């Protein structure tokens, strides 16, 4: 049986695990690292470096060192939360021809976030191959539960580019619950998984009973994470430096890169200490060319004041998820913490306030997601039989009627799922209908994500409303949607499988894959 590894492709760090005889375990790199920074650097000599070496050279090469590609994957450049990220990132973010957010390297080359993530995935795959001592071709990759269709598809594409057969795109909180081993507890458990990582925030409510993990509701914010906390600190530091007479810090990628890293370091210290010392010599220049140094103490109180509104954004999605699941706070048996940000004291306090109880912390919140992904790989390969995951779609799916969306499959429906709805023509003798598929919770069509469009032609003539069309939605276990429409009297039908309107086209993907193959071939030759 082919091995299926589990990869947690994180915003800041990634982790890979495989199912061993004793259960899932994290695979460490040759250097002993259990997680790898999700950082990819394009060096001047044309090499691509990933992980710690990439992070280490970031200061010297800030505009070609790409971090947090997960924030961009499957997103439009004009999405409201891409813009603030683009503003403070030391690398350039541009619009691809289809409007997607891509990265422009100083060389002028534009790179999709899928390709950048693929470098990270490739590295994870290499680590796995070294650790298990055999080729690895199959993987389960995790994404935030609140990721939409385009973000999932784009992540799957990244896996393909990395030469992986992506067996499943799995939701991170579900994976974490699996790794926590709650199914080994005796009674039925009602759980909340609070997953706060580098770039995303998820909350899932689920029940676990006799090995069946049934997700009842998910919610979250696909662009709220530890990164935002670092950026708050960084922006404060930039403002202070400019007050001290430094000019052009905000537009200097090297300075921004150093400040961002220092802010992240301080944040981590503040999880354990009441204050942290920041120290960056020669971080800026005055108008006259004199040096400006950063030398300052940041207290935990100050840090919490800077990021208070970010922490306040955590409560809403939790309340909504509980309401959707029909579970009161008091009925929860446990709250599981996942993700590096759940080490931050202010976040833990917020969780306690939201759920009215002390949350459970696993041994390592950075590794549980990968462990769960590996366990799910075991389910798919048939090695794990006593467990099954019943996951849900995070966003409602529907069809546009006039200016509004008529929901066909509501959010939090268990997948695989199918539902059908009858629609009537709106004009007399209308011989075709255009079916527009949307994803989202707003009643207004334009506030939802447009997933695709197709046409059913050759309808029988008749008065407005007299001709009916049945539209059926099917979501498979992978969360991939297909839509079909049928006119019952003539039996005319049309089908559409949703390929995201934002993402790489098949042509682009093929081109990238060929390029990669060529590069890999040269790399092999060079090593000889």
């Amino acid at each position, binding site marked *: *049986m082919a091995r299926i590894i589990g990869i947690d492709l994180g915003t800041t760090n990634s982790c890979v695990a495989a199912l061993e005889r004793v259960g899932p375990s994290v695979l460490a790199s040759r250097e002993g690292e259990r997680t790898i920074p999700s950082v990819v650097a394009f060096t001047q000599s044309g090499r691509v470096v990933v992980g710690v070496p990439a992070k280490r050279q970031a200061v010297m090469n800030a505009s070609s060192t790409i971090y947090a590609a997960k924030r961009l994957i499957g997103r439009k450049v004009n999405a409201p939360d891409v813009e603030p990220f683009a503003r403070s990132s030391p690398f350039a973010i541009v619009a691809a021809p289809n409007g997607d957010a891509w990265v422009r390297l100083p060389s002028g080359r534009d790179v999709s976030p899928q390709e950048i993530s693929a470098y990270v995935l490739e590295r994870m795959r290499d680590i796995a191959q070294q650790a298990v001592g055999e080729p690895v071709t199959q993987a389960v990759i995790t994404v935030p539960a609140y990721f939409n269709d385009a973000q999932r598809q784009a992540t799957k594409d990244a896996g393909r580019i990395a030469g992986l057969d992506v*067996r*499943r795109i799995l939701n991170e909180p579900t994976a974490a619950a699996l790794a926590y081993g709650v199914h080994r507890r005796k009674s*039925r458990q009602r759980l909340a998984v609070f997953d706060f990582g580098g770039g995303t925030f998820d909350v899932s409510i689920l029940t676990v*009973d*006799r*090995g*069946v993990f049934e997700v009842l509701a998910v919610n979250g914010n696909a662009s709220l994470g530890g990164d935002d906390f670092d950026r708050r600190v960084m922006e404060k530091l930039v403002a202070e430096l400019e007050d001290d007479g430094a000019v052009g810090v905000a537009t200097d990628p090297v300075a921004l890169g150093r400040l961002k890293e220092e802010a992240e370091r301080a944040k981590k210290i503040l999880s354990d200490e009441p204050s942290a010392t920041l120290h960056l010599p020669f971080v800026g220049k005055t108008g006259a060319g004199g040096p400006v140094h950063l030398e300052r103490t940041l207290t935990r109180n100050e840090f919490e004041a800077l990021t208070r509104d970010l922490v306040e954004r955590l409560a809403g999605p939790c309340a909504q998820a509980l309401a959707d699941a029909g579970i009161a706070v008091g009925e929860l048996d446990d709250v599981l913490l996942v993700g590096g940000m759940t080490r931050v004291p202010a976040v833990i306090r917020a969780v306690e306030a939201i759920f009215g109880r002390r949350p459970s912390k696993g041994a390592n919140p950075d590794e549980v997601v990968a462990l769960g992904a590996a366990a799910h790989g075991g*389910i*798919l*390969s*048939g090695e794990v*039989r*006593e*467990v*099954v*995951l*019943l996951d849900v779609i995070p966003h409602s799916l529907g069809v546009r009627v006039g200016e509004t969306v008529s929901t066909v499959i509501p959010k939090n429906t*268990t997948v*695989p*799922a*199918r539902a059908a709805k009858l629609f009537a023509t709106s004009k007399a003798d209308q011989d075709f209908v255009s079916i527009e598929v949307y994803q989202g919770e707003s009643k207004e069509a334009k506030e939802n994500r447009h997933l695709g469009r197709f046409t059913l032609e050759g309808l029988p003539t008749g008065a407005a409303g007299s001709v009916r069309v049945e539209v059926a939605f099917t979501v*498979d*276990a992978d969360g991939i949607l297909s839509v079909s429409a049928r006119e019952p009297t003539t039996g005319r039908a049309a089908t559409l499988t949703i390929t995201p309107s934002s993402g790489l086209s098949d042509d682009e993907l093929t081109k990238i894959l060929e390029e990669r193959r060529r590069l890999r071939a040269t790399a092999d030759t060079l090593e000889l």
Partner: protein
Amino acid sequence: MVAVKLRCSSWEQLAYVYQNDIKRGSMFLRAHNPPPVGTEMRIDLILPSGSVAAFEGRVSAVVPSGQARGPGVELALVKLSPGVLWMIESALRTTAKAEEDVVIDTESPEAEEDLLAALEAERRGLERLDPYQILGVADGAGDDEIRDAFAELSKRVHPDRYAQYESEQVRLLASEIFMAVREAYRKVATADARTRLAGARKRPTPPAVSIDETAALDEARRLIEAGKFERAIPIYDVVVRKNPQNKIASAGRELCEGLRLLAGDPLAAAERIEAAVELDPSNERAARELQAVRRTVSELRQKFLAKLLGRED
């Protein structure tokens, strides 16, 4: 009413109780202080699998110590739903099958074809079962029992279970089966849902019929009782042609067609007989035949589950 919980510790014990008592509509309860004749009792029989079969009965005789199985009481079962019998029968059958050690070899292409056929039969079979039957629980089952049944079935039929098969068709069929199980669960998971379902299942009153039609219909029914259902068909045809609204005649016709198909194609037969019951819920013969044919269909299904069990255990 006295409520009693009985635990069957082994399948052998259940088989014994079923063969000697339940099947005959009776039950023997050991008791040192036997309740008087006429006492109404509710029995929750806990099967070795943990499922609960519920009966209601009345004490028909008190057996004193030293006689037969005494001391205790003989119970005449008054409420014995076919669902409960079905559950016990299928549980016993599944166990028997599992012990025969039926194993599907999953590696060869022929085995994949076998699996496909088994899944397809399962999918079609499910179409004719009500939510309780799909989950394999009794009509009166409670939240816990229903949840347990759903959990066990999910672990067997979820498409992830079939992810290792090359054939996309296998996963597709598994998805269909899982969706049917999930939908059944949705319909009976909570007390509210069960009440709604019971409301939806209430049957309409039988349609009125004029006199001379009644005579023809009586004749047709006698023919059916005598096993000559092929000869009843033309009579129903005449009545239907005269009065297309006559649901009793349409139902009779469907029943005859169904009976004719019974030996060759039980699934098609089930479809016709089901139509008959829908057209005329007062047709007792059709209702009886429907129960029987459903049992046949669920046997196909149990065979399939037994195969899966054989593989798993």
